């Protein structure tokens, strides 16, 4: 049994973020409903993703591989549908009342049921079983539209609150699809490295077991194409903002991702480096790093900087613990990767690392303070128009959390049952 270390660390980070996030979200009172539900959704998103990554970081024996695939697939439903629901309500709620929220949940559960039956009949690689893979198109379109609308709101170009909504939409897009932007140029240069991306190339042992089928691959790369287009749109807009001297840290975040994507074309696109040892290193330092470590950090940023979780005295301690765990574990893992790539002995690099930590002591606290200071709040401008008042009782939020927990438990239960019954993950019972 082997362990994919980076995926395992990503799993731990996601779980830590999710569990601390849900505790903090449940303690909150007097917060606008869409942010409250948003905080719960992001937390459950990362709990399900953390469990998936923790389980799929192990390369198991052949007879248990189907179990891994099923766990990956069913927990992915919770992860993906949490993202979709999040896009319906945050940063701008398209859902206007409780009834619409119930309809949206019902719709997503229906898709999960259809996909589950397809998994039983056709296996996990069938396009119908991968219905939920179309999430990037749905969420990305919503967030990019919100982003464009608020970025270009006339007379509000310097309004931090209006621009904050656009930045939240931008950050959500980076969080969900940022790892595809390291290859975005391949879409337009019709490069094989873009069009031949498979689910199996994603980090994690269960992903590696996914098998390629023409239409499943098409749907997958179509989502990556859509994601690349959203990235390009934001790249162009943020370059314009920087040119107009209105750029902020979110501008530079997108620009860095997309410029790395241009370098990606050079690294992936040339035949001469096809078999070079640098390509896997590049993959590791870009897409894989985003997929495993950067995502939880961006989520942390979203939760705290955009006021989804408000830091108050009674939750300050847990918030601090949560951020320090995430920041320290992620930075240690990144340093470990860099250390493994630098051609010097481990003892020397460990010494340099120790020196750097000693000099920067207290940095994690300083980082936490800057993270939670001056969180962005929503605008008063047409507040009622964009943010309808919906009162959610704590009992309803309890029900919401239980529903998401049960979806994870059902997913794991189904995975075990399918494995015991002997449903073939690859081809289903009809295959």
């Amino acid at each position, binding site marked *: 049994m082997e362990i994919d270390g980076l995926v395992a660390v990503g799993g731990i980070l996601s779980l830590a973020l999710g569990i601390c996030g849900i505790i903090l979200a449940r303690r909150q009172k007097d917060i606008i409903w869409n942010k409250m539900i948003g905080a719960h959704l992001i937390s459950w998103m990362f709990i399900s993703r953390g469990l998936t990554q923790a389980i799929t970081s192990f390369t198991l024996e052949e007879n248990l591989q189907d179990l891994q695939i099923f766990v990956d697939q069913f927990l992915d439903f919770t992860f993906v549908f949490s993202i979709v629901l999040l896009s319906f309500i945050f940063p701008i709620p*398209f859902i*206007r009342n409780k009834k619409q929220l119930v309809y949206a949940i019902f719709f997503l559960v229906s898709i999960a049921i259809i996909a589950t039956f397809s998994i039983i009949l056709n*296996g996990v*690689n069938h396009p119908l079983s991968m219905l939920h893979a179309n999430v990037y198109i749905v969420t990305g*379109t919503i967030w*990019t*539209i919100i982003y*464009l*609308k608020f970025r*270009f*709101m*006339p007379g509000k170009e310097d309004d931090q609150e209006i621009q904050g909504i656009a930045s939240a939409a931008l950050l959500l897009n980076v969080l969900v699809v940022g790892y595809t932007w390291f290859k975005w140029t391949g*879409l*337009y240069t*019709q*490069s*094989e490295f873009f*069009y*031949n991306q*498979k689910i*199996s190339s994603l980090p994690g042992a269960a992903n590696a077991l996914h*098998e*390629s*089928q*023409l239409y499943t*691959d*098409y749907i997958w*790369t*179509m989502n990556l*194409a*859509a994601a*690349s*287009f959203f990235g390009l*749109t934001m790249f162009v807009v943020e370059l314009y903002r920087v040119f107009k001297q209105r750029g902020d840290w979110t501008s530079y975040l997108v620009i860095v991702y997309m410029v790395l994507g241009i370098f990606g074309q050079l690294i992936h696109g040339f035949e001469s480096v096809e078999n070079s040892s640098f390509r896997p290193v590049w993959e590791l330092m870009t897409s894989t790093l985003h997929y495993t470590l950067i995502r939880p950090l961006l989520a942390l940023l979203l939760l705290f900087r955009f006021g989804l979780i408000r830091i108050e005295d009674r939750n300050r301690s847990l918030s601090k613990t949560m951020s320090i765990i995430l920041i320290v574990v992620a930075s240690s893992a990144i340093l470990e990767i860099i250390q493994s790539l630098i051609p010097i002995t481990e003892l020397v690099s460990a010494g340099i690392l120790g020196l750097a930590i000693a000099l920067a002591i207290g940095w994690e606290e300083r980082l936490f303070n800057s993270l939670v200071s001056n969180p962005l709040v929503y605008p008063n401008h*047409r507040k*009622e*128009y*964009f943010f*309808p*008042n919906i009162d959610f009782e704590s009992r309803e939020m309890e029900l919401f959390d239980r529903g998401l927990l049960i979806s994870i438990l059902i997913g794991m239960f189904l995975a075990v049952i399918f494995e015991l019954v002997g449903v*073939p993950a*690859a*081809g289903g019972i009809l*295959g």
Partner: protein
Amino acid sequence: MKDDFSILDFLMEDYSRRILACFLSFFMITLSFHGISFFYVVDVQAGESSSISYSVSFITNENSGQESILVADDSSESLVLSREIVSIDEQTKIGYIEFLVTYSETSGEFLDPCDDVHIEISPSGMIADWSNPNNILSESSSDCEDMILILYVYPNYSGENYSTNESSIEEIQNIWSDISFGSGELTVTIDVNTNSPPTSIVPSIQDDNEEIIVNWTFHLFDFQIDEF
């Protein structure tokens, strides 16, 4: 006020209408561009590690011929073969070409030893798997032994059926459908050095040529893919 909200209004508000129309148009163009590129332009490696296994079986056929060539002492002759010369149509795939070269001492003189014969396939002209380590491109004999030469034309062809789940049906078809292999002319050069009989001191008794018989066999194939 909140009841006035509609997604349509949200999208169609004055200032954002043009921006969003532009965004959605380019989005549609990008998705179309991706679809066309995926299905028609880029060599997409679909079906890797597929759960579906395919058995690939070869239907083989042979095209044989024989040429008798008289080669003078200390000289060489060439035998040129091609699809057109041996009447193999352009769609037929050539797996490999085998040569059996035979000769005997034909001078009829008493105690005349076998001549030295060297036969060689020139590694150019025909599109073939020239770097195949199993190729035998040259042979020599000085004791009238038969010589065998083999040129593998179609890469990776051995004639043996196989099964795979590593490739899609399209990939398998692509692997075995390249009719460019076997096109061009193949040149076989035969050198002869005669060995004179002990009686050659008599002026009328001379061994100054040899008849070399070249048997060639083109191993042709077609393939069939079955899913299981």
